[in-house]
């Protein structure tokens, strides 16, 4: 084994994997702090500002607190599934980062020829977290939250998938790296604006973020599907949600806003800035919009989002065919 082999075939991929994982979790954790500070700014108050400079140590303090809390498993619950459920959302969110190219050099399996489908499949598996967590809790509030989560997620997955097909047609590939490279001249948000709109809304709904936090609507259902969870298991649901926010933001930046492409600055900085922009957008939407009623959500999905994404698909396909001739 030569030194060169060691560096190129072992050390570099290993650094790549570890870097992407740590980056994703780190960004997810910092997003918790960013959200609390920015909600404070937009609600004319200060937000957490005690621990560390600007209160950035709040995340660490919360984690320490949550580790030392009692990790209670309800005696009436289905114990195995109760423990498995919160791990699913973390695993699924982390695995999804594998297919996303961060920069031309960084990315784990980013030239997978079905990268986008892989991302959608992982999003689809993420439903099981809420579904099993709510089922295993054996609690009526959890069950109600689960019912909402399942219907909402299965529905919004459809629009998420359909909205991305326009991008696939323009880039002529399911590989996310090819999609980013196809955006060198023009970001796909311009030809695919409605696709972006649908994807942004569906991404919010998929990560159960306000205003789509109907499965965990705390004014109606205590905490929805994770009512019975405490300690680190709740922490995994919590961090999983924020990693999901980072994932959705990163996908928006990568699929519609040109990924690492940008003038002057290095690619890593560009993708970071774009992702941060969308994370802030998520937080702004959370601080502004009220939660819709459940039937309003479903009606909006099936009567607005689905026709919009289908029309976008058909028109894009027509234009692509006409241009190809």
């Amino acid at each position, binding site marked *: 084994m030569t030194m060169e082999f060691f560096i190129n075939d072992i050390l570099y991929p290993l650094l790549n994997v570890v870097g992407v994982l740590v980056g994703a979790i780190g960004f997810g954790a910092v997003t918790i702090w960013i959200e609390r500070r920015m909600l*404070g*700014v*937009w*609600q*004319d*108050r*200060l937000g957490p*500002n005690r621990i560390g400079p600007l209160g950035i140590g709040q995340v660490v303090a919360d984690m320490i607190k949550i580790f030392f809390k009692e990790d209670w498993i309800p005696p009436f619950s289905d114990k195995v599934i109760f423990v498995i459920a919160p791990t699913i959302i973390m695993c699924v969110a982390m695995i999804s980062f594998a297919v996303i190219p961060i920069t031309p050099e960084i990315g784990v399996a980013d030239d997978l020829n079905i990268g986008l489908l892989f991302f959608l499949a992982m999003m689809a598996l993420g439903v099981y977290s809420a579904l099993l967590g709510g089922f295993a809790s054996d609690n009526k509030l959890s069950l109600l939250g689960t019912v909402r989560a399942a219907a909402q997620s299965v529905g919004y997955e459809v629009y998420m998938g359909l909205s991305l097909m326009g991008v696939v047609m323009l880039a002529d590939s399911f590989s996310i790296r090819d999609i980013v490279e196809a955006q060198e001249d023009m970001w796909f948000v311009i030809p695919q604006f409605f696709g972006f709109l649908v994807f942004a809304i569906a991404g919010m709904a998929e990560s159960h973020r306000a205003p789509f936090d109907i499965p965990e609507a705390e004014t109606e259902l205590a905490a929805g599907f994770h009512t019975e969870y405490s300690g680190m298991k709740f922490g995994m649901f919590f961090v999983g949600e924020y990693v999901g926010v980072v994932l959705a933001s990163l996908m928006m930046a990568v699929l519609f806003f040109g990924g690492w492409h940008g003038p002057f600055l290095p690619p890593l900085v560009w993708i970071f800035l774009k992702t941060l922009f969308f994370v802030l957008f998520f937080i*702004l*939407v959370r*601080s*502004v*919009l009220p939660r819709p009623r459940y039937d309003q959500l479903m009606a909006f999905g099936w009567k*607005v989002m689905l026709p919009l994404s289908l029309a976008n698909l058909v028109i894009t396909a027509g234009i692509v065919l006409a241009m190809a001739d």
Partner: protein
Amino acid sequence: MINVFWSQLRSLWGVLKHTFTKPVTVRYPEEMPYYSPRYRGRIVLTRDPDGEERCVACNLCASVCPPDAISLEKEERDDGRWRARYFRINFSRCINCGMCEEACPTYAIQLSQDFEMGEYVRQDMVFEKEDLLIQGTGKYHDYNFYRVSGKAVEGKDKGQAQNEAEPINLTSLLP
């Protein structure tokens, strides 16, 4: 449909403008927010301008107190004035409603702006008369009950106080 989207976008913009507004909250222990003179905080017993206790142990505050936090007992001094033998407020019951202040005929009991009353022992929340009495006159600087009331005390007969008319002669028929 268009209206729905427009109102959402307008509220997004409206909140985004708050990025540059000053926060209304302050970093509390370092900076104190403004408290109005009428803030209802810890209860104090005040003295009149001569330095005497204003409280005449009339028990109105105790009877009006909704959570029954006030307890006191009357004693009569040699000069004929009433005073409280003990005056006790249990601040772990007190709800800072200010009704005792309203009921007080002599402006003795008043609510101050102080609210930092955390204690580790529940019993420390029970304030005795020595704890409640302050050296000043509180919100009403010139008021002295015995100078305006219709009660004879040492050095002043009925009707001799400020703004006070002579008592009506009950045995006379003249107006």
